[in-house]
């Protein structure tokens, strides 16, 4: 494993201004009142991740995990502080990604690829593999709006999985498509994660997932660093901390689903 640093986050602050999209009438009427309530989701987070590390990000709901991940992906830029990913290519694997629905699957593959920082030639070389992996067949040439939700997420996963970027950010372990595709995508993810050149960050609620996959864990609490270190060490502290927290049903179900998936992972 090289000692090169892949992600460097320094004193990261991210604020949400609670500006909601509103009608003109409303915004004129409320012109006088200050509508800017600020909510700071991430408050001064600093860490650096070496190339090849697999880092888990834990913390309870609303602690700023996903926000951090999205800002590393460049979707939000930092209000204060900095994020440096060098010249690595980066992609965010998340459930329910977006395409331009009027365009065909093929066009969307190229557009996503170009946005992820690949050249036209590189995408062309991998194009067949993406289509094969996504199991779309001749549907790639149909507009994305005609796709079923399964096809949609399969395509999304295939693009990011096949066009292997240097850094992969995973927001909740994916469960995509039917059982066969799930197995296939897990296998692919395992490959991706185990590649020692690839830097991976995983956000998850499931302690089991993190324990199985990560070499290092960062625990975020209310937008600040609570702990950073060896997986077991951090997880033990986290479990103790969370034992008196009330876990709501929805989240429990999510964790359950993830852990079921993990069983499948082992069966591979």
């Amino acid at each position, binding site marked *: 494993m090289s000692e090169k640093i892949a992600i460097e986050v320094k004193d990261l602050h991210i604020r949400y201004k609670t500006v909601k999209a*509103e009608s*003109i009438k409303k915004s004129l009427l409320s012109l006088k009142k200050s509508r800017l309530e600020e909510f700071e989701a991430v408050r001064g987070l600093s860490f650096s991740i070496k190339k090849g590390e697999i880092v888990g990000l834990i913390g309870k709901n609303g602690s700023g995990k996903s926000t951090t991940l999205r800002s590393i992906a460049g979707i939000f*830029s930092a209000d204060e502080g900095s994020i440096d990913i060098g010249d690595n290519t980066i992609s*965010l694997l998340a459930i329910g990604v*977006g395409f331009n629905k009027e365009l*065909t699957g093929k*066009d969307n593959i190229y557009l996503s690829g170009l*946005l992820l920082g690949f050249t*036209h030639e590189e995408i062309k070389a991998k194009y067949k593999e993406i289509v094969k992996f996504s199991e779309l067949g001749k549907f790639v040439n149909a507009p994305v709006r005609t796709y079923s939700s399964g096809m949609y997420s399969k395509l999304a996963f295939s693009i990011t999985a096949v066009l292997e970027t240097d850094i992969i950010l995973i927001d909740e372990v994916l469960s995509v498509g039917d059982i066969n595709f799930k197995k296939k995508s897990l296998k692919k993810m395992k490959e991706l994660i185990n590649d020692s050149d690839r830097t991976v960050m995983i956000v998850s609620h499931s302690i089991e997932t993190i324990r199985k996959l990560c070499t290092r864990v960062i625990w975020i609490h209310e937008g600040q660093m609570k702990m950073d270190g060896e997986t077991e060490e951090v997880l033990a502290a986290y479990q103790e901390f969370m034992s008196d927290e009330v876990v709501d049903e929805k989240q429990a179900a999510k964790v359950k689903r993830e852990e079921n998936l993990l069983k499948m992972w082992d069966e591979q």
Partner: protein
Amino acid sequence: MKKFIANVKRYKSYMIYSAKATLKGEVAGSRLNWLWWILDPFLFMLVYTFMAQIVFGKSEPYFPIFVFIGLNMFDFFNRTVTRCVRSVKRNKGVISKVYLPKYILVLTEMLVNGFKMCVAFALVVLMIPFYRVPITWHIFEVIPVFIVLLLFTFGASCIVLNFGVFLTDLANVITVLLKLVFYMSGVFYNIMKRVPEPYNTLLLYGNPMAGLIQCARNAVLNSSHPYYDLLGIWFLISVLLCIFGVRMIVKYENSYVKVI
């Protein structure tokens, strides 16, 4: 500014591919496919010719070409601005997944509509010998006119794109506003002849679309110079709008995803 150019370079292939794909997607579903890019302005030209010549009985020399120039230029501006209002929302899927400087969206729209405008102007080129319009070196003077048109469209679209994110009903207002600008731009009448003094000069200089259209007609049809003072003023205003628009986008684009 440096960053802007670097980004445009970086996303160049994305913009071109995206524009191409959009154009392809638009015609894929229709039977006459790309012919619509010519047919659409052509049919509208007939509508306005009917209105002006038959209903109002007011004509201009080379009337079809006269309308065509105005219509093509206005359509370009109109379509780009209208689409930019909702651009961020429409591309929500892409934007919430990867970073993309939002003015790239504006440039992509301009590529799409610019291409359509070029196709429509090909018809103008064909019509010029047909109507025996004298061709002079003045025709090259349309180049500065189009530069100002592009800059103005880009600046206005950037600003509209930014506000379109935060104001949900901006699209309605813009539609009405653009309709007003359309009738004030003299697309199917000659502002200088039909509007009484001093309103005509006021309209010509105050409404950039009216001014630009008139300038282009001067160069192509009347074998004379465009109004260089007008072009100069709007060039400066457009550059300022562009700088302001891009700055605004850079400043607020992080919060777009949080709002939509």
